[in-house]
């Protein structure tokens, strides 16, 4: 369904992705991990057509996404930083997305799921970081698409909202969706991910399920596994 073929990308002098080939065909939750600047966000933005690869091709449902936009009907995206038109209320903001994308079938359900019904009339500029992230989540999940892309979805969320989010992600997996998540919160990945991809300096360092990662690194948790990879990399370079 999603295929990256030999993708390279350089920003200025920094090579962010180096001949990366990757694909996801089966439903599941996939964690994309790596240190800051390892190319996680770039990889996701490329699938949305926001960042153009210098070399290589990205395919969605067997077709190149280059210059296309209709395929994004099958994608929903949660951006890393929730930036909104400040002069709008929450309700108007959700209506703006609906104006662009069409009627959202799960709007009311998501408003209730994340408990934002009480501040629909509030201006976005007056919302706290956590509240903005909830609005961001509702704006994303009010659509029902087969692929979900989330960039740091837990930022600013309180424990109740975090539980609501995990519940929703599990529901989406059961519904047969491909869910791609980048995050620095390793417990979140450990708890949810079926498989992880570890990016390091623009290359895929590891891809597989968590138990294979633990076996390969001779560790028992994700934190130590990543520390092991990074230390080993430092020693070899």
């Amino acid at each position, binding site marked *: 369904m999603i295929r990256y073929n030999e993708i390279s990308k350089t920003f200025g002098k920094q090579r962010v992705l180096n001949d990366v080939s990757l694909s996801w065909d089966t439903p599941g939750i996939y964690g994309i991990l790596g240190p800051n600047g390892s190319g996680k966000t770039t990889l996701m933005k490329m699938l949305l057509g926001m960042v*153009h690869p210098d070399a290589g091709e990205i395919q969605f449902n067997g077709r190149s996404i280059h210059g296309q936009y209709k395929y994004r*009907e099958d994608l929903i995206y949660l951006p890393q930083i929730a*930036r909104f038109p400040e002069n709008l209320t929450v309700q108007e903001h959700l209506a703006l997305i609906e*104006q662009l994308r069409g009627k959202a079938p799960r709007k009311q359900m998501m408003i209730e799921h994340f408990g934002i019904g009480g501040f629909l009339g509030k201006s976005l500029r007056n919302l706290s970081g956590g509240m903005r992230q909830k609005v961001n989540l509702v704006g994303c999940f009010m659509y029902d698409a087969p692929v979900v892309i989330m960039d740091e979805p837990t930022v600013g969320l309180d424990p109740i909202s975090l539980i609501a989010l995990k519940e929703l992600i599990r529901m989406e997996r059961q519904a047969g969706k491909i869910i791609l998540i980048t995050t620095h919160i390793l417990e979140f990945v450990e708890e949810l991910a079926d498989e992880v991809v570890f990016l390091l300096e623009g290359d895929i360092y590891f891809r597989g399920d968590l138990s294979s990662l633990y076996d390969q690194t001779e560790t028992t948790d994700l934190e130590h596994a990543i520390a092991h990879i990074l230390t080993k990399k430092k020693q070899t370079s």
Partner: protein
Amino acid sequence: MIKVIKYSLSDLLRNRWVWAYVLFFWATVFGLHYLRGDGGQVLVSLLNIIVLFVPLISLVFSLMYMYQVREFIELLLAQPVSRWSIFLGYYLGVTIALGLALVIGIGVPILLVGTGVAGDAWMTLIAVGVFETAIFAAIACSLVVRNDNRLIGFGMGLMIWVFMAILYDGIVLLTMVLFEEYRLEGWALAAMTLNPIDMGRVLVMFRMDYSALLGFTGAVFQRFFGTFSGSIVLIGAFFVWVGVPVWILRRRTLKKDF
């Protein structure tokens, strides 16, 4: 694209700066009418405001608005809408809003106090203002896409305005003085079409039959504008002036990494 235009228009028509712009024109037209009385004199005074002030306001306002929009552009780019239609929609939204503000700002007082001179000179003045708005809003939008740093974007925008509104005339005048022994009417005509501010100013002056003020060059201009092909060239030049920055905006938008 229509959806983006509709959204940006509804957003902009609630913007207090757009209404301040309308009020500024009302105050200026009524003020000039009160002080000068004669419609022709009001038009000439307003001409200088239109050719210098409208490009500056269009540039600065569009820069401000587009930098604000850029903040949440990621959210829009993730939707199943083409990248170009988002940017073109915003560009047209800001142009229509400022253009409408200009038409209402000048049109309403003129309808109330009367034109005094031929109505077509007023129509030309408003049309020039709308074209200037479209040109400088397009320049601003392409600067926003080019420069992530808004200080550089604003700096470049103001430099463009200073060049076109002030320096350009000085440079043209200098070439005229340096090469005064040559026939320069053709160059004067070409130099005018290379700057939309000059083009607008000259076009309105000729609609008011003030060409005699420009001496022999004025006669050449009069002959040129008097012909059908001259008018077509001038209208064509305005469209080129809108089209080139829009084309640059499109190129930059499609290549940009967000």
